[in-house]
């Protein structure tokens, strides 16, 4: 009889470590003995997590009440992200969190009708056909609808420290053992970790070690063959300046992402403040100079401290070696664009749950996990790299360089096919779907040269009617959505103790 994986140790800090622990605990319960080694937090009061809609799925599986996010984490639901100043004189655009691709009849995506309409003189911007974008623009919160082609969803801006505390409360309240510590040593036997030794001398053995320590990669970084591969070529920013301003009222329905000469600045609405993140290339500007400019770039005064951190987008050559598996930014890092940060942890955790190892002596799941994580990471990287590649800010050295650098081949194919025909070749393990890529590309000004010939089977009259009907449907739908204020005031505020569940 083979020995099953029974002892699991999760090492890391902040939300990723508790997300991982919560997922393992709620999926396998007492089937495994789970211990958390909590490393010192990197979070400061200014930190924010900007999240994508699928995170709600994780919360549901964990049984985490969304109302707590609003009451404890000061979350504001946002249905999209607004991009401005990425293309010189080009108009800003909103990429809405739409749920499903718009349907233009049969298996045609709605964008095909729009491309043809545009060639015939339609001047309505693409975002007007996105329910998420229009909800965001109106400061409203998407609600469920029967009609799949009109569905949209929301992500959150979350206070990072409060969210981490909430998850920790949830996990430790469930009886999971945890200990705050630092790692003094990792005892290895070839590709396997036999034990970790904490700074206080405690030695912990386990069948599986999960590294959720972020870019520090305290475990996976010590494993053979896990060299870091940098993606700075395509994601050039290496610093982030974080600060806070006053809350914007009424709450905007989107995160604002504005490019400037040396990077971009993001405004993430929270209930009690606005998180401000300036992401930049340190070769182009110093943090000190940027801090001086920040109130102007953000368009609001800075309240309180501002802190700088390093960014290093890239991936480890291997993300699961022996009995050590990396989740979150210990596996790969990205630019903070597109609410990627927590999504990295979320996607890794989901795959670890499906590929959770069953045998303590051999981990054939590792190779598949590694491939899936790499594909997921590359697809996400490409999505972010497209923002940089498609910029039209001329005469800023950073932005000129971004346009001139050859895109990764996987992205170039998407750009090519889209430019030629308005189609998106999707690969395995894509986070963003066809309609996400379409709104990204079109928003940045990449307009397809031709469209699917099947569109011509629709008469001009029907085509115009379909376009107008969708506009009208979205106007009506958004009109029926609550404003963010109405939505938040309807959300009950449960006591935090309620999350302590049966162990």
């Amino acid at each position: 009889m083979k020995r099953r994986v029974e002892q699991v140790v999760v090492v890391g800090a902040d939300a990723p470590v508790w997300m991982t622990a919560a997922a393992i605990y709620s999926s396998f319960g007492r089937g495994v003995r789970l211990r958390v080694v909590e490393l010192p937090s990197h979070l400061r009061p200014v930190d924010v997590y900007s999240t994508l809609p699928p995170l709600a799925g994780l919360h549901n599986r964990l049984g985490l009440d969304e109302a707590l996010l609003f009451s404890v984490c000061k979350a504001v639901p946002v249905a999209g992200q607004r991009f401005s100043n990425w293309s010189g004189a080009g108009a800003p655009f909103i990429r809405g969190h739409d749920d499903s691709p718009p349907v233009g009849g049969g298996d045609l995506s709605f964008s095909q009708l729009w491309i043809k309409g545009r060639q015939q003189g339609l001047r309505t911007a693409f975002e007007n056909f996105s329910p998420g974008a229009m909800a965001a623009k109106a400061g409203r919160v998407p609600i469920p609808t029967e009609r799949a082609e009109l569905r949209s969803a929301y992500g959150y801006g979350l206070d990072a420290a409060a969210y981490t505390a909430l998850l920790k409360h949830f996990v430790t309240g469930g009886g999971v053992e945890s200990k705050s510590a630092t790692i003094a040593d990792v005892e290895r036997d070839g590709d396997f970790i036999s034990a970790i030794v904490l700074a206080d001398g405690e030695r912990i053995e386990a069948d599986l070690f999960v590294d959720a320590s972020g870019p520090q990669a305290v475990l996976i970084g010590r494993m053979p063959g896990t060299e870091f591969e940098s993606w700075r070529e395509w994601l050039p920013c290496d610093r982030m300046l974080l600060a806070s301003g006053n809350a914007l009222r009424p709450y905007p329905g989107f995160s604002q992402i504005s490019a400037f000469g040396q990077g971009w600045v993001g405004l993430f609405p929270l209930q009690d403040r606005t998180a401000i993140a300036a992401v930049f290339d340190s070769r182009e500007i110093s943090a000190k100079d940027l801090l001086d400019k920040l109130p102007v770039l953000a368009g609001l005064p800075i309240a309180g401290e501002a802190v700088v951190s390093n960014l290093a987008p890239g991936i480890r050559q291997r993300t699961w070696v022996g009995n050590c598996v990396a989740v979150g930014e210990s596996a790969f890092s990205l630019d903070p664009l597109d609410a990627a940060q927590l999504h990295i942890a979320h996607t890794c955790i989901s795959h670890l749950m499906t590929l959770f190892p069953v045998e303590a002596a051999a981990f054939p799941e590792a190779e598949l996990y590694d491939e899936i994580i790499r594909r997921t990471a590359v697809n996400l990287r490409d999505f972010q790299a497209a923002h940089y590649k498609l910029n039209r800010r001329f005469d800023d050295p950073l932005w000129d360089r971004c346009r001139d650098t050859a895109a990764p081949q996987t992205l170039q194919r998407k750009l090519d096919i889209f430019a030629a025909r308005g189609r998106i070749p999707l690969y395995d393990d894509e986070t963003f779907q066809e309609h996400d890529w379409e709104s990204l590309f079109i928003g940045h000004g990449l307009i397809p040269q031709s469209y699917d010939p099947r569109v011509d089977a629709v008469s001009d009259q029907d085509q115009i009617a379909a376009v107008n009907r969708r506009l009208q449907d979205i106007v009506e739908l958004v009109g029926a959505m609550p404003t963010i204020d109405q939505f938040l005031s309807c959300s009950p505020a449960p006591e935090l103790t309620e999350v302590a569940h049966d162990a």
Partner: protein
Amino acid sequence: MNEPLNIVILGGGTAGWMAAAGLVSLIPPGRCRVRLVESEEIGIVGVGEATFPEIKNFNDAIGVDEAEMMRATQAAFKLGIEFVDWGFEGSRYIHPFGVHGPANMAHIFHHLWVRARQLGLNSDIEDYSFAAQAARSCRFELPDAHRPAINSAYTYAYHFDAGLYSRYLRGLAEGRGVIRTEGKVQRVAQDPETGDISSLELESGETISGDLFIDCSGFRSLLLGETLGAGWEDWSKWLVCDRALAVPSERDELSPYTRSTAMEAGWRWRIPLQHRTGNGYVFSSHFIDDDEAASSLLRSLETKAVGEPRLLKFQSGRRVVNWKNNCVAVGLASGFLEPLESTSIYLVQIAIMQLIPLLPSKTVDPRLRDEFNRLMDLQYERIRDFLILHYKLTSRDDAEIWRYCAAMEVPDSLTRKIELFRHSGIIERYREGLFTPISWLSVFTGQGLIPESYSPLADATPDEKLVAQMDQFRSDLRDRAEEMLPHDRFIDRYCNAQSAAAVEARP
């Protein structure tokens, strides 16, 4: 408005007429004109009489009336494929067109099943497939998509006479404006600089010029292979069969599934149609000679043969590109995979449905061409691996072919799939490609590979409850399957090819 694209299709078999019907039905006349050149002297390879459920999407997209098409092609329904003696002698399993277990548990069900087996449950995975159970009891009804019940969790395909299907599509395509020219190609004219095909010169002296040529010339691959020199990638070391003998026999039980029975040097198909049963023996000439194979086939028939067995020769493999210059190959001109999983017509369909959205203008945009080729690569390679699995995963040692296959080296991607499933029931997923985890699960387990372990996610339900739930589901499934009409009676009501009154009786 640009001039319409002139499309010339060479060859009028299933591939040619599906391409013609697809193009003329989905693209308006202002965008393309379709001509088809075929010769009645050139025989049609009509092996693919069994289809995959995707065919219904194609028919629906081009506006085919299902019952009418079924009457015209002597068609019957198909809920899956039964594999007999594959894996080991005496084995029987169904690869069904539908999920195992409750539809909302598809991601975890087989792990629960493995766990229940370890607890002593004695059952096969197909016991939890509605499509398989309906097939076993020879019953059929159309799935009810509006009811989230057991009987919505399946799809279906057809058995039909492929010759009649092409004839049916020909009528449809010609009615919608496709111009057919009878004739044989004498010479293919090419642009001296680009190598693009400019026209086909026929023996009659007629010249047919075009912007885009679709090569449906079958194994000969006259345009893509012979004229443009697209290379051939040989897969016969993995898929060793290189011959097929086909013979119809008199109608017997109208079972709603294809049967594939492993033989001494290959395998034999049985495809029941309304008017007869299609039979054939796919074999390797390395392991048996033609005469022996023919007598083996005839001996195995359940009803009287109608005519003499017809021999086909082939090699498994494909053209390294399916679209070169201004020529796209569809069907056998683009490659061949044996009909073990009824994929021939699917490969025709997917080529057409991927070509249409990427259809070029008068000049070929290499970006569109490369994308088409990339998508077809994925389709071919993934089907190839799935077919190899049937041969590789065998413990038969009673014949040379099976010993060879069990020992052969297979692509690394396939080895890993087998090992991960063996280890803990993990099934890899992919976006492009016909076979879903349901298919992989059916063949893995049907050919005797039971996972040694299962995902710990399946540990949530207590032991006693698990086995009881599995038993309950299985018996609900059987009860519901037994409520359906016998397949032959359903056919009589819905699409009887003989009965003119069938139209009135349609539900």
